């Protein structure tokens, strides 16, 4: 089956007064219909910039797409015209963000905002769009959808707003939903509700999901495939089981070991020393070099070639095999 989104060797750099920030530097991934790709990384790893640059949502300049392809259907999103991108965004590809309040207009009723993508992309009449929006709200578990349509965003709690955002993203029946830290601002009991909702909706509609998060636990429960990013680079890519049980990258495995878990008892977590590098001051080598406990001489100067393991499991590390 052909992937619905295929991104290859994406490089997106910010050109600022102080220098070049290699926010995204050679990222590739693909995902198929009905699949969930988790993109894991810390702040500054480039996980959000990757998505925003693919959708043309970042101002250029300062951002410049240095290279790469991002095929969605037959269209290379990186070379598409603004008009072509607009027809895809909010239509076949929808997004939800961490803080729903910032993506909802506080002065407009929920209903007005919900029918907008439908009247624009689907040429529906207001009445048809309204009916469809109500169905969407019901789908995301909002009781009394009709009255919700006539409410303003501030009348909802954080979790309800995120439900509204999801409803809004789903009105156009997108093929791909990009969720950027969708539950980070929510409490864990509400997070569980939202994640369950996303899973159920995916099962029903067959849409693909890109889930951007820093939370390994969320990824473990949600994703089919995982891309691990660090300082703009792809470090490891594979099925969720590859990443969590057969990791071939020292960063991934160190991160997994250093994350406190609810289900196990450890006397002491092995920490990762140091902190993520300043993107302004990257050398040509592996950005994890300074913090890596298994580094070799080459790591400082040369970013490793890709190593392929079983199936699509890829890792970028100079070591032939990661010592367990």
């Amino acid at each position, binding site marked *: 089956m052909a992937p619905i989104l295929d991104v290859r060797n994406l490089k997106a750099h910010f050109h600022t007064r102080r220098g070049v920030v290699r926010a995204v530097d050679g990222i590739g991934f693909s995902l198929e219909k009905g699949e969930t790709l988790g993109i894991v990384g810390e702040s500054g790893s480039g996980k959000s910039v990757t998505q925003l640059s693919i959708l043309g949502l970042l101002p250029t300049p300062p951002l410049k797409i240095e290279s790469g392809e991002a095929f969605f259907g037959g269209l290379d999103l990186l070379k598409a015209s603004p008009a072509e991108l607009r027809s895809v965004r909010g239509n076949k590809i929808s997004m939800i963000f961490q803080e729903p309040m910032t993506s909802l207009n506080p002065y407009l009723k929920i209903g007005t905002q919900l029918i907008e993508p439908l009247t624009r992309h689907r040429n529906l009449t207001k009445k048809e769009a309204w009916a469809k929006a109500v169905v969407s709200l019901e789908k995301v578990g909002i009781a009394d959808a009709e009255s919700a349509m006539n409410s303003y965003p501030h009348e909802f709690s954080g979790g309800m707003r995120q439900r509204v955002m999801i409803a809004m993203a789903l009105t156009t029946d997108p093929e791909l939903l990009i969720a950027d830290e969708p539950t980070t601002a929510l409490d864990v009991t509400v997070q569980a509700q939202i994640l369950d909702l996303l899973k159920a909706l995916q099962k029903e509609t067959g849409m693909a999901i890109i889930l951007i998060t820093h939370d390994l636990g969320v990824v473990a429960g949600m994703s089919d495939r995982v891309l691990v990013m660090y300082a703009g680079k792809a470090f490891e890519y594979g099925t969720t089981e590859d990443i969590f049980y057969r990791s071939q990258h020292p960063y991934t495995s160190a991160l997994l070991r250093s994350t406190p878990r609810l289900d196990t008892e450890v006397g002491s977590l092995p920490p990762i*020393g140091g902190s993520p590098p*300043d993107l302004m001051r990257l050398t040509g080598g592996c950005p994890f070099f300074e913090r890596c406990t298994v580094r070799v001489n080459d790591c400082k100067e040369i970013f490793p070639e890709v190593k392929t393991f079983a199936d699509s499991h890829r890792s970028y590390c100079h070591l032939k095999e990661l010592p367990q």
Partner: protein
Amino acid sequence: MTGTDLSMDTNLKEDTGGVSLWKDAFRRLLKNKMAVIGGTFLLLEILLAIATPWIAPYPFEAQNLELWVEAPSMAHWFGTDTLGRDLFTRVLYGGRISLMVGILASLVSVLIGVTYGAISGYLGGRVDSLMMRIVDVLYALPFIFLVIILMVYFGRNIYLLFVALGMTQWLTMARIVRGQVISLKEKEFVQAATSMGVRKSTIIFKHLIPNCLGPVIVFMTLTVPTVILEEAFLSFLGLGVQAPMASWGTLISNGVEVMEIRSTVLLFPATALGLTLFSLNFLGDGLRDALDPKGAKD
């Protein structure tokens, strides 16, 4: 733990000195051309003002009634005024007075305004409400008339002028500082100091005031021209500095009288004042950008 030391230190900048936010801001200020030009011009003016008694070609009160509003010449670079005094000398001395009034009066306003605003903002509650209502009432008074009454009552005294003009400016300063302090008070470093048992006075003077100096400095660069203009206005009314001493304000008001006969008598002091005001504004703009923490990020 020791294994992590190496990588931690590589994240630090190489120099061991440490760069304070002030140094950092100064570096950014130097990148702003207009601010540098303005700053240099002001510095030059201040140096000239200090050196005036030694470099002025004539005594400032020396009259020569035969040279009534002469045009600029080799002997008198800016020409002469209505009493035949050398205008170049007068502009130099005038600058001395105007800059002094501007800077000292602004300092007075900063001193009162910062202390008042910081105390009001930090203590909060009823004290704050009361202190701010007082400011509101004072705002409502036509302050320049108060100055005029003071000057008439106590006589024309240059030091009184500094204080009186400073008194007109501290209100806005107090409000700015109060606003800053209220937002700083919520910052965790202030709460940390409180929870460590640091004295209130220490918190105000070591944490709150240094952290609101940025806006204070910017506002000061705007206060200086206001005060200079107010002094000019008072001089224009004959309430400024006492003749034969002159400020740019008195020089301009004299120049206006003979504007139609010899425009240079007005032009030179007016240009000096204008350039100073421009420089202060450019410097103020530059400082605002340089001290803005948002600017520090990119």
